[in-house]
C-alpha cells in the first residue's frame, strides 16, 4: 500500500443481538482516494461505514469487537471522545437528512457546535463550503429559507456542505445517490471525485456502474465478510475470488 492509511480496520466484528453482521474485517483505507465498498443488500456495507464514525453507538443492540484505528488512535478505546471522532468525518446518508433550520444554519450548525461564533468567519465558511458542494449559486439569495424547501438533490449537496463545514479529514457516503435522480446523482459523484484531492473518501454502494465510475480502491463485502479488496482497476479487471467474479458479472446480487 502506498502512502498513508488514515483508517485501519483491524479484526472488526459487529453483532446485532445474536446476528453477526460483520465477520473479522481487516481493511486499510488509503488517503485522498475514493474507496468504494460494494456488495449486495444486507451484506453489512452500511454497518461497516457506521462503525467508522461510531454511529453504531446509537443503534440499539449493536456490539462491536476489534479495532478501527484513525490517525493512530483506536476509536473504540473507552477513553476516546466520540464527538471528536465524528468531527473528523462528514457523513452523507442514503436519504439526505437536513436539520430543521434554515439553509445557512444547516451549514453553520457544525462549526457553531465546535465553538465558532464570529459572524464574519461563519458567513465565510458557509459560503465556501456551499461553493465546494456546488450549491452556492442556487441558494445564495435564500440562505434564510428552510432547508426542507430545497429539492432532494439540493438537500444532499447541502448535507455535503454541512459535513464539510466541520472540516473533517474523511468523507463517508452511505449509498449517497440512492434517493436522487440521475442528474443529481451525477452532480454528487462529480463533487466526490473533486473532493478526493483534499479528503479521504469512503463510499458504500450497490450500484456497480457507480463503483466503476468513481472508485480508486475497491472492497467487496459479501455476507459480512470482506472477500476481496485492492486497486479498483485490478479488482474489476481480474477478480481473484470466484465470489467477487460472480458478483461483478451479475450472477449473485
Amino acid at each position: 500500500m502506498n502512502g498513508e492509511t488514515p483508517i485501519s480496520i483491524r479484526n472488526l466484528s459487529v453483532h446485532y443481538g445474536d446476528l453477526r453482521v460483520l465477520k473479522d474485517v481487516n481493511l486499510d483505507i488509503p488517503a485522498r482516494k475514493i474507496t468504494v465498498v460494494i456488495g449486495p443488500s444486507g451484506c453489512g456495507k452500511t454497518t461497516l461505514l457506521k462503525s467508522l464514525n461510531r454511529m453504531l453507538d446509537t443503534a440499539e443492540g449493536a456490539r462491536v469487537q476489534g479495532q478501527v484505528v484513525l490517525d493512530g488512535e483506536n476509536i473504540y478505546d473507552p477513553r476516546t471522545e466520540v464527538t471528536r471522532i465524528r468531527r473528523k468525518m462528514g457523513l452523507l446518508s442514503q436519504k439526505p437528512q437536513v436539520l430543521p433550520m434554515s439553509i445557512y444554519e444547516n451549514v453553520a450548525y457544525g462549526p457553531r457546535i465546535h465553538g465558532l461564533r464570529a459572524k464574519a468567519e461563519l458567513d465565510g465558511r458557509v459560503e465556501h463550503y456551499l461553493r465546494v458542494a456546488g450549491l452556492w449559486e442556487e441558494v445564495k439569495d435564500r440562505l434564510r429559507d428552510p432547508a426542507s424547501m430545497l429539492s432532494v438533490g439540493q438537500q444532499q449537496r447541502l448535507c455535503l456542505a454541512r459535513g464539510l463545514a466541520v472540516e473533517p479529514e474523511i468523507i463517508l457516503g452511505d449509498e449517497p445517490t440512492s434517493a436522487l435522480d440521475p442528474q443529481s446523482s451525477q452532480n454528487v459523484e462529480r463533487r466526490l471525485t473533486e473532493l478526493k484531492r483534499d479528503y479521504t473518501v469512503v463510499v458504500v454502494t450497490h450500484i456497480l456502474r457507480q463503483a466503476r465510475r468513481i472508485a480508486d480502491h475497491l472492497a467487496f463485502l459479501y455476507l459480512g465478510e470482506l472477500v476481496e479488496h485492492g486497486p479498483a482497476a485490478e479488482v474489476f479487471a481480474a477478480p481473484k475470488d470466484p465470489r467477487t467474479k460472480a458478483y461483478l458479472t451479475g450472477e449473485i446480487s
Partner: protein
Amino acid sequence: MNGRADARLGRRKRTELFFRTLAAVSAAIVLLSLLLILGTILWKSVPALSLSMLTQTPRGGFYLGKEGGILNAIVGSLDLALGATALAFLLSLPLALYLNVYKGRASKTAVWTRFFLDVLWGVPSIVYGAFGFVVMLALGLRASLLAGILTVALLELPIMTRAIDEVMRLVPRELTDASASLGATRFETALKVLVRQSAPGILTGVLLAFGRGIGDAASVLFTAGFTDRIPGSLADPAATLPLAIFFQLGTPFPEVQQRAYASAAVLTLIILLISLAGRAMSRKVTRHVVK
C-alpha cells in the same frame, strides 16, 4: 353467477351507504353539541355581560345580585394557569427529552415512565386536589395561589409530558443521527434538533395542558381557596373562574346565576384566545420543520 355478483355488489353498496351516513351523523352531533354549548352559554350570559363584570371585583352584595364583577377570578385563573403551565413545562420538557434522548425510546425506564404518566393522566382532578390539600396541611401552608399552582402543575404534568413525548417519538432516528454525526453531543442534538423539529407538537402540548389547568375546579377547591380580592402575592388565596361559576350557579338568585354563565363565557373566551394565539405561533415554529 351474474345474479350472485350483482347481489353482492348491492350489499356492499348498502354497507357503504350505511357507514357513510353513520360518519356524517356522528360529525353532525359533535358539531351541534359544540354550537349548542357555546350558544347556551352566550345566550344565558347576555343579560349579565357588562364591562363592570370584567373590570371590577365583587362588591358587597355581589352574590345577592348587586354590583361588582369577576375580575378577581379572571386574574386568579390566569395567574394560576400561567404559573402552573410554566412550572409544568420546566419539568415536562426535560422529562420528555430524558425519555427520548438519554434513555432509549424503547428502554424499560421509558416504557414504565410512560405507563406511570398515563396512569397520572387518568387520575381525577379531585384526587390531585385532595393530595395537594394534605401536602399543604403537612407543610403548614394556607390555601394560596402557590399551593394552587403546585397542584395544578401536578395535574398538567402528565398531559404535557405525554403530548410532547408522543411528537418527539415521531422524530426520525436519521435526523438526530445527522446531528450526532457532525460531532454534536446528545444535549446539543436534543436542544437544537429535537426541540425544533417537535416545536409545533410541544406548543400543542403546552396549550392542551393550559386548557386543562385553567378549566379545572376540583384541584383548586381546597388548595387555592376563593377570595373576592385579587391575589397580591403567592401566599394569598386566589379565586378562579371555574369556582366562580360553581358558587354563582349555586345561589338561588337568577341574576347571580346569569353571572355564572357570563363567567363561563369569559372562561371559554380565554381558552379560545389562547388557542388562536397558539395557532398563530404554530405557523411560525412550523416553518423549519423537516417533513
